[in-house]
C-alpha cells in the first residue's frame, strides 16, 4: 500500500525506539503510529511486535480492544457524537440520529463515531470535531457541520 515501505519501517522503528524505555510502551507507540498514518496497518502491527519482542497476536489484540485504534484509513474528519445520558436528556438522541444518517452517505468526508460522554455534559448535547469540543448542539447544527466539512469548506 505505502509508497515507501522502507521509510515506513524506519519511521515505526524510530517511534518504538523513542518509547521503548517507558514502562508499558505499547499503547503510546500505537497512538503515535496512528497519529502519523491515520490508522494502524497490518505491516505496522508486525513491525511493532518484532521490535518489542511480542507476538503479532498480542499487538493486534490491543489494536482491536480499543475503540480509538483503527485498522482502516479514516475519512478526513473525525466527529465524535455523545450518545450518553446527560446529552440524551438534552436532546442528544436526535443529534446522533442525524449524524449517523449523514455518515451513511459514501461521499461523506466525516467519520462519525459514537462517544459515551465528552465531559461537556453541562452544555450538551455535545460533539467533538477533530479534537474541538462543541456544545449545545442540535440536529441542524450537526447537519451543517458535516455538510460544511464534506463540501471542502471546513475551517
Amino acid at each position, binding site marked *: 500500500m505505502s509508497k515507501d515501505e522502507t521509510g515506513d519501517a524506519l519511521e515505526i522503528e524510530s517511534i518504538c525506539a523513542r518509547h521503548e524505555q517507558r514502562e508499558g510502551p*505499547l*499503547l503510546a507507540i500505537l497512538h503515535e503510529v496512528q497519529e502519523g498514518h491515520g490508522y494502524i496497518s497490518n505491516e505496522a502491527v508486525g513491525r511493532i511486535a518484532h521490535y518489542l519482542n511480542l507476538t503479532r497476536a*498480542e499487538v493486534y489484540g490491543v489494536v482491536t480492544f480499543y475503540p480509538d485504534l483503527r485498522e482502516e484509513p479514516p475519512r478526513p474528519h473525525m466527529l465524535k457524537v455523545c450518545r450518553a445520558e446527560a446529552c440524551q436528556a438534552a436532546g442528544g438522541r436526535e443529534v446522533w440520529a442525524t449524524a449517523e444518517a449523514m455518515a451513511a452517505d459514501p461521499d461523506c468526508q466525516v467519520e462519525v463515531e459514537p462517544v459515551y460522554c465528552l465531559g461537556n455534559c453541562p*452544555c450538551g448535547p455535545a460533539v467533538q470535531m477533530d479534537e474541538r469540543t462543541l456544545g449545545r448542539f442540535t440536529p441542524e447544527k450537526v447537519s451543517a457541520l458535516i455538510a460544511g466539512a464534506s463540501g471542502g469548506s471546513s475551517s
Partner: protein
Amino acid sequence: MNVCVPCDSTAVSIGADEVADALTRNDPAITVKRTGSRGLYWLEPMVEVERDGQRIGYGPVTAGDIPGLLDALRSGDTGHPLCVGDVEALLESQGQRRLTLRRTGVVAPGEWADYVANGGTEGLRKALDMEPQSIVDAVKESGLRGRGGAGFPTGIKWQTVHDAEATPKYIVCNADEGDSGTFADRMLMEGDPLALLEGMTIAGLAVGAEQGYIYLRSEYPDAHRMLERALESARTNGMLGDSVLGSGRAFDIEVRIGAGAYICGEETSLLESLEGKRGMIRFKPPLPAIQGFLSRPTVVNNVITLGTVPTILAEGAEVHSSLGMNKSRGTLTIQLCGNVARPGLYEIPFGVTLGHVINDLGGGCASGRPPRAVQVGGPLGAYMPVERFDTPMAYEEFGEAGGMIGHGGVVVFDDTVDMAAQARFALEFCSIESCGKCTPCRIGSVRGQEVIDRITDDDDREANIALLRELCETMIEGSLCAHGGMAPYPVLSALNHFPDDFEPRTTAAV
C-alpha cells in the same frame, strides 16, 4: 484593565474564545487572563473583572455583547443586566465550600506564580516536614474517601501501600472520567492542574513512591495540553524531579493517554492498559495496593481524591473532617446536568438532599417541564424518582435509598423521558463497553435489550418482565466487576419506579 475569561473546554465549546477575542479587539488595553471555569455553566461564557479585591461576574456573554459591556467592565457597574455580582458571594449563597476546586476558575491554569500566590504548594511544603506515616495519618483523620466511585477510605489505601515492602511503588491517577454526567475531573485538570500534581507528589512522599502516572482519557485533549503545561511548570520550578522543592526526595509524573475504552476507568483494567495491554479486568485479590502497576504496590486514586489532598495537608485534617454527614466527610463535587436550568459544578458538603440540588440549585428542568427521573452516579447508577428527592447526598444514605453517589454526577430528565428506552440504553452501553471476560455481562446485556424490546412490543409481556428481572439478578451475582454487576441497577430502578413506561407501545415508536 484585567478581565478573566475561561479557557475551560466547556466554556470554549459555547463561545468563550470568541468572547476573549472580542474583548481585545474592542479595547487593546484590556489584558485577558484565561482561567478555568467556576462551574456556573448556565452563565458561561462568563467574564470577570477585578474591583476592590472582588471579582465581579457577567454572564452569559456573547462576542456581540462585548461593545455594550465594556463600560460596565471599566466601571465595575453592577447594574448591567448581565451582571451577577461578586462571584465568590454567589458561590457562597449556593452553600458551596470550595476545598478541592478552590483555585479552579480563579488562577491561570499551570501558571506557577499564580498557583503559589493562591496557596499552591502549602500542603506539599508541610508534607515535606512530616514523616510518611504522619501524612497517611492526616489523610485518615480527614475522613477522605475515594471520589472515583467506590468511596473507599483513601488513608487506608495509602497505609497498605506504605506498609508494602516491594519496590518500586507507584502513584496512578485515574483520570479516565468515563461516567456520563461527570466533568469535575476535567474541570480540575483544565482549571488547576498543578493541584493534581501536588496531590500526587504528596501521595508519593506518603507511601514512598518516586513515579506517578496520570491515565487520561483520549476524549480530553484540552486537559492533556493543560497537564503538559503544568508538568513543565512544576519541573521548571522544582516541584517535580530529582529533588522535590529542594528536599532531596525524587518524584516525577508522566501522562498516558487512554484509547476510548470506558472499562479502563476500572482500576485493574486501567493498570492493564497502562502496561500497554488490552484493558481486561483482573481478579482481586491481589489488590492494586499490593500488586498494581507491573505487579508493584500502587496507589490508584481519582483526580478529585488526589486534588483534595493538598488542601487537607495545608489546612489540617479538621477542615475536611468537620464538613459533611456521618461517614461522608468533606465536600462532594456535584456535577449537575441533563435537562436542568442551572447546570454546573457545585462543591458542597455531603448531606444536602437530591431535591435541593435539582430544584433549588438547578432551578428545575431547562424545558420548564417537571423533572421525572434523575440518574445519579453515572451509567451504572439507579434512576431516582421524584418521590426520593428527600434523599441526602451522602454515600451510605444514598445507598440505603437504592442509589449510588459514585463520582457525583446528577443527570436530570423531564417528564417526556421514556424509561424503557433508558433501561435499554443502560444494557446497550453495558454490552458495548464490556471487557468481555464474563458471560452475564458480555452476553446477558445483549439478551436484556432483546427482552426489553419484547416487553414493549407486548410479546409475552409478563413472562419477559420476569425474565428481565432474573437476568438482572444473574448479572449482579455473576459479574466479576461492577460494570456488569451494577448495570442492572438503572434497569431495575426504571422497572420498579416507572412500570407504566414498560407498557405496550401504542404508537410505532422505538
